[in-house]
């Protein structure tokens, strides 16, 4: 078994565009061989730094573990800026430094009806969650997306879980309908477990609904991170007592009642 935390210099095996036509939607699967990483809990993440970053950008980039087995690490990455653009253009054989698994993952309760609420690329950690869940018949997925469904690992997931529903937000006018679907789902799972990952506004909605229905819910935050290991205090979030907690070590997954979430991040 690998050592938790130690930096590994890994080789990229493949970079595969997801979606209908050759990568036009910017979503990619990145596969690494022989990661030598310690076993992960779904929701944990890795920091990634390709050798070609050099001195710029200075920060590595955090990504949820999409799938980790003893001989493969898979990340699901959306190219949305200078770091992810570089990552998604790497070719097999390129060297990348990776460290992790980092942070706290999602809670996994085999006997509790559990719904995974995913928004866009926030679906990534649920591939690992579903794959490692011992009672997949207790799992449901509600997925909101803006790009074609085939850009995401949705069909793999829908094959293993008991129920899966996708909602395409074609225009901003669709948002109220999606929120309605979330509301219905949170109400239904108020006695179960809700695990959510996606953009901040989406997580704020989930948190608000969970409070309203008294549901047990966890959200995974995507705060800006510099170090990923608790060294810089840059990634903080306000907890319920108004103190700052580090998202990289105390999160990225939090129970919603632990936090007092605000719009800024």
């Amino acid at each position: 078994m690998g050592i938790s935390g130690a930096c590994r210099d890994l080789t990229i095996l493949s970079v595969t565009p997801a979606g209908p036509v050759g990568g036009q939607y910017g979503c990619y699967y990145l596969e690494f061989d022989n990661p030598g990483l310690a076993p992960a809990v779904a929701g944990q993440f890795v920091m990634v730094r390709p050798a070609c970053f050099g001195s710029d950008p200075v920060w590595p980039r955090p990504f949820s573990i999409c799938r980790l087995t003893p001989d493969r690490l898979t990340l699901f990455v959306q190219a949305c800026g200078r770091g992810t653009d570089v990552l998604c253009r790497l070719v097999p054989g390129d060297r990348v430094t990776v460290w992790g698994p980092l942070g706290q993952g999602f809670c996994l309760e085999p006997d509790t009806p559990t719904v995974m609420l995913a928004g866009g690329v926030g679906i990534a950690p649920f591939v690992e969650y579903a794959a490692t869940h011992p009672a997949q018949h207790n799992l449901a997925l509600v997925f909101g997306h803006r790009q074609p469904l085939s850009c995401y690992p949705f069909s793999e997931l829908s094959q293993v879980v008991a129920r899966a529903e996708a909602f395409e937000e074609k225009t901003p006018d669709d948002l109220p309908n999606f929120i309605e679907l979330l509301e219905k789902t949170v109400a239904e799972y108020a006695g179960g477990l809700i695990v959510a990952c996606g953009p901040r506004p989406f997580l704020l909605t989930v948190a608000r609904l969970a409070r309203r229905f008294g549901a047990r819910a966890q959200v995974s935050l995507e705060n800006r991170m510099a170090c990923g290991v608790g060294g810089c205090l840059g990634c903080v979030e306000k907890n319920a007592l108004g103190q700052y907690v580090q998202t990289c070590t105390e999160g990225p997954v939090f129970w919603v009642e632990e936090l007092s979430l605000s719009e800024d991040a």
Partner: protein
Amino acid sequence: MSADTSVRLPGMHAKNPVMTASGTFGYGMEFAPYGDLRGLGGIVVKGLSLRPRTGNPMPRIAETPCGMLNAIGLQNCGVEVFLHDKLPRLPFAETPIVANLYACDAEEFAELAGVLSAAEGVAALEVNISCPNVKAGGIAFGQDPAMAGKLTEAVKKRAGDKPVWVKLSPNVTDIVGVARAAVLGGADVLTCINTLTGMSVDIRSRKPRLANVIGGLSGPAIKPVALRCVWQVCQAVSAPVIGVGGISSAEDVLEFILVGAHAVQIGTANFMRPDMAFRIAERLPALMDELGIKNLDDYRGTLAAG
């Protein structure tokens, strides 16, 4: 054959010149999974205040070309928690642990120095008179030579036998003036430099990238500024200088020693990869061998005239 990397500083002996910079290495243990802390020349911990501090609102970090801005605002656990919960876990017998101090006025600085001077396992006190991210005190102390001198004196009086390091700000017209004042005030060592004040904005949202608007710039982008400051200060004072600012390789370490630094601190580069400081410390002897440098004392300050 391997080069001698050891460094002598007032009141302490470091096995190599590679230390970590305050605020970029947590309280030390965060980085223990990535290397042997005993392999470092020293560890300077996150800035400590008498009482815990919450720090600034988020977002408090932003990336810039070859660097970053931070406005953490000295969030820290307070000196008591540090001494009881953090320090005992560090290998202080083998690696010098340096406490970085922050306070709002001279009395508070002195009180903090008093608490830390009694602590076993703290090798030196690094006085932060140069933080750009706090309203009271901070950088203002480090911009006025008279104030910097007085503050150093106040700390030195209460520091017992612990060496006092004073950390200088580059955000001044004349860093040498402040350096001289700190040495006159009793500074045993000068740390050079803290972050440069900077700013970053988003033309779409029309918002600053930091909630605090202004932050401290660090990383490879500031290395030439840091090198210049270290060189100027080394020319002017005889106290040992510790170079910090944008160092991310063993080659960078030698650049700072060449212009006169006794040791260096690795800051933002620890974020590039958490084993960075360990790797630099490991690589240094081989690089010295390559360049025919037997020990650092012979190499220090040997920059040829321009």
